């Protein structure tokens, strides 16, 4: 058993005893301090033990990818919460989203602060907690988007500024606004109510509370919308599996999709002027039709296709779905060249084997020239 889980197991009964003792003794400062801090720490340790933080960051990276796509910023999601995007100045950048990006700490803190805060009744606390957690998660997605956007606009050199300062300040301002809305504002309201009714806050009757229906409705609607968007995003997009870095999509089930790191070219990886996108292994086509696809993150020109293998294959080369070249490669003609075809930045290049003869394997190399453009 992890030593952290052991800490939690030992600490929990002590914590519970002290929380009840302070509460009974009406020592509200010690009660709140001990209860909220202890709960936060235990939640974070338990979440880490069960891998919830990694799940959160994977889910968050996926939603960030969707948001960026929706706003027209080209990016793709790779395994284990990595996003790749073209960076200003040429080339591409891979953003690896770490545990700090999961917002699990901030969400645990919000939960604890609300749960033990004595101004609200249990039903109000529940609504505020659900709303607060959903809002914190959403704010975090926007925070990651800001980092992505700044990197896209200003290059990978701006990541430090984006991550440690700009996005962090945004996150802080947004979360403080959230705290204002769900803690301070209602606290002031009930304090005024208690004065008018000459009562203690916790003794205000159900009727005396004058629950703000509009606020409750607003929060319920927002939570509902966020949960709904989250749900349908999982249902509609199969990429989410990639973000989790789980088992790759079965080759038997779908056409081959190669979209992992080895396919991605950066100016550094391309190397000299002439280079090629190559497979370390021949394409193991299980079907006669296969798909060899990559997205171009560096400005480049395509100038030819070479092949190695017995038999013959008919290929088609498409850029963003539009076929630009077709031809046969066989033992006699194992190279097909053409005058340079310019590939726009972010375009999807697809080389498809549309027919095979006397073989089921073909090794393909696509000739590229890196233009090193902005």
């Amino acid at each position, binding site marked *: 058993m992890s030593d952290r889980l052991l800490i939690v197991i030992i600490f929990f009964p002590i914590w519970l005893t002290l929380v009840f003792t302070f509460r009974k003794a009406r020592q*509200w400062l010690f009660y709140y301090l001990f209860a*909220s801090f202890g709960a936060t*720490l235990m939640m974070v340790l338990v979440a880490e033990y069960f891998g919830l933080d990694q799940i959160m960051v994977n889910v968050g990276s996926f939603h960030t990818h969707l948001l960026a796509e929706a706003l027209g910023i080209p990016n793709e999601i790779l395994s284990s919460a990595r996003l790749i995007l073209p960076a200003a100045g040429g080339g591409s950048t891979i953003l690896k989203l770490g545990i700090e990006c999961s917002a699990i700490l901030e969400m645990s803190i919000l939960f604890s602060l609300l749960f033990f805060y004595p101004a609200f009744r249990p039903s109000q606390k529940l609504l505020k907690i659900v709303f607060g957690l959903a809002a914190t998660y959403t704010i975090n997605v926007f925070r990651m988007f800001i980092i992505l956007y700044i990197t896209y606009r200003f290059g990978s050199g701006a990541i430090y500024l984006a991550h*440690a300062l700009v996005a962090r300040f945004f996150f802080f301002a947004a979360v403080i606004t959230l705290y204002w809305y769900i*803690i301070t504002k209602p606290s002031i309201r009930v304090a005024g109510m208690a004065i008018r009714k000459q009562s203690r806050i916790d003794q205000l009757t159900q009727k005396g509370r004058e629950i703000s229906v509009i606020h409750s409705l607003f929060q319920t609607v927002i939570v509902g919308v966020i949960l709904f968007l989250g749900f349908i995003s999982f249902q509609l997009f199969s990429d989410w599996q990639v973000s989790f870095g789980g088992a790759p999509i079965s080759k038997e089930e779908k056409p081959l999709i190669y979209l992992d790191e080895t396919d991605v070219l950066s100016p550094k990886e391309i190397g000299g002027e002439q280079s090629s996108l190559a497979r370390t292994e021949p394409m193991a086509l299980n079907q006669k039709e296969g798909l060899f696809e990559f997205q171009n993150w560096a400005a480049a020109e395509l100038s030819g296709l070479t092949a190695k293998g017995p038999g013959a294959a008919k290929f088609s080369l498409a850029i963003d779905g539009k076929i630009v070249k077709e031809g046969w490669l066989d033992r006699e003609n194992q190279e097909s060249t053409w005058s340079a075809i310019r590939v726009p930045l972010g375009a999807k290049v697809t080389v498809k084997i549309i027919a095979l003869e006397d073989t089921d394997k073909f090794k393909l190399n696509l000739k590229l020239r890196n233009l090193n453009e902005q």
Partner: protein
Amino acid sequence: MNNNVIIFAVFWGIWILLPVVFDGLKVLMEVVTVFIWGRDFRKHQIPPEKLPLVTLIIPTYNEEENIYECLAHLKTQTYPHHLLEMIVVDNGSVDKTREIVLGQINGSDQIQLHGEYFGQKEFAGLIDLVTRPEKGKAEALNEGIARARGEIIITIDSRTFLAPSAIYNMVAKFIEEPKTMAVTGNIEINWQMGQDKPLSIKESFLAKCQFLEYLSGFRLGRQFQDLTDSMYTLAGAFSGFRRSALRTLYSSATISEDTDLTLSLQRQKFHIGYVADAKAYLKPIMSWEKLYAQRVRWARGEMEVFGLYDKFAKRLHHGWGKAVFYPLLLISDHTFTFPRLIWTFLLPFMVLFGYSFYVIWMAVLLMIGFYILLDLFIISCCYLIVDNDTRSQIRRSFHYFLLMWFYRFVVYFFRLSAYLIICRERPEWTVETSPIKSIKKIAKEFSGRQDGGP
């Protein structure tokens, strides 16, 4: 200090650092505003025939330690004595407060102050003692207001000692600015008053930190609020009103009757100001328990009053100053309090998430350093705009800027305690469930057991 420390401090410590930055920006704003618009050191030249009758109202309850000195300072005022009336409203004191007041009314020709004797100035003013059997500061003040004859009504606490020209300077503000309906004076902590013996370490720490706190709170804070029309509290210790402004009286609905009245006047769109040269001195609170009770009252009062005036405080047509700075005050005092609580204690535990002790502790020291620099900046700015008396006090307490961060840290917990107590406890002047009392009790029991007690 390497990059990791700075990154850690900014990334994780933002919850503690940014409120300080927020306060720092607020101070910067105050300094710039005050330095540009708030430095008027002209001597007042009011023709004697324009000086109005002034009523001073002093509510008291068991103030035998302070009431003599309070009235003695009033008697040394430069304001024409024939234009002063003083009404002491006693809330059923059970100590010698009444006897001392009566002694002042019928007193001898000489008055003793700080161990020296002063010839009593010709005093044709009237001191009236009103006794009320029930407690209640708001009711006591209202009783005094009902009896007042003056055009200007000044309320002071019985623990307040006015500088000789305080009343004159306050009245001058009303005459020079006809639109001003109410003002607060400049409250300064004076730890030397009534002190026969040297201060202990604890007393020195509390006294000088309070001095520095009040210095920035009044000389910068209140001045800024005057200039931006966002005055939040007319100090109960020393404030003045035009009679016509007091159509609304003090209310006992909340524990902070002074804040309540201030917002009530603001709602009526009265201009409320601050008088930097109307100085009043307060003795510092010398015990943690009393300081705790005071800060709980203030914080509780803040929540209660803003709760009562919730809708007003947000309306722009009452003035942009209020619409902007009232919410900022609440964000700074209340909203920041909550995440700061957890992060203060969570930061050291970041070692569980892979950060080294060195990085964490260096980052904590960096944040403390930031607080210290901020206080140094505040005190230095104040030094430039205060009078010579205050400057000498600053010189005597200057080195406490190194410890103000700790003082503010403790006061922050007092404030948080208030926000929790308000949910569960009835309002009271002293706080039964004070954590200070509990800590003392535990310490006493522990030391009792160590001495072989039961």
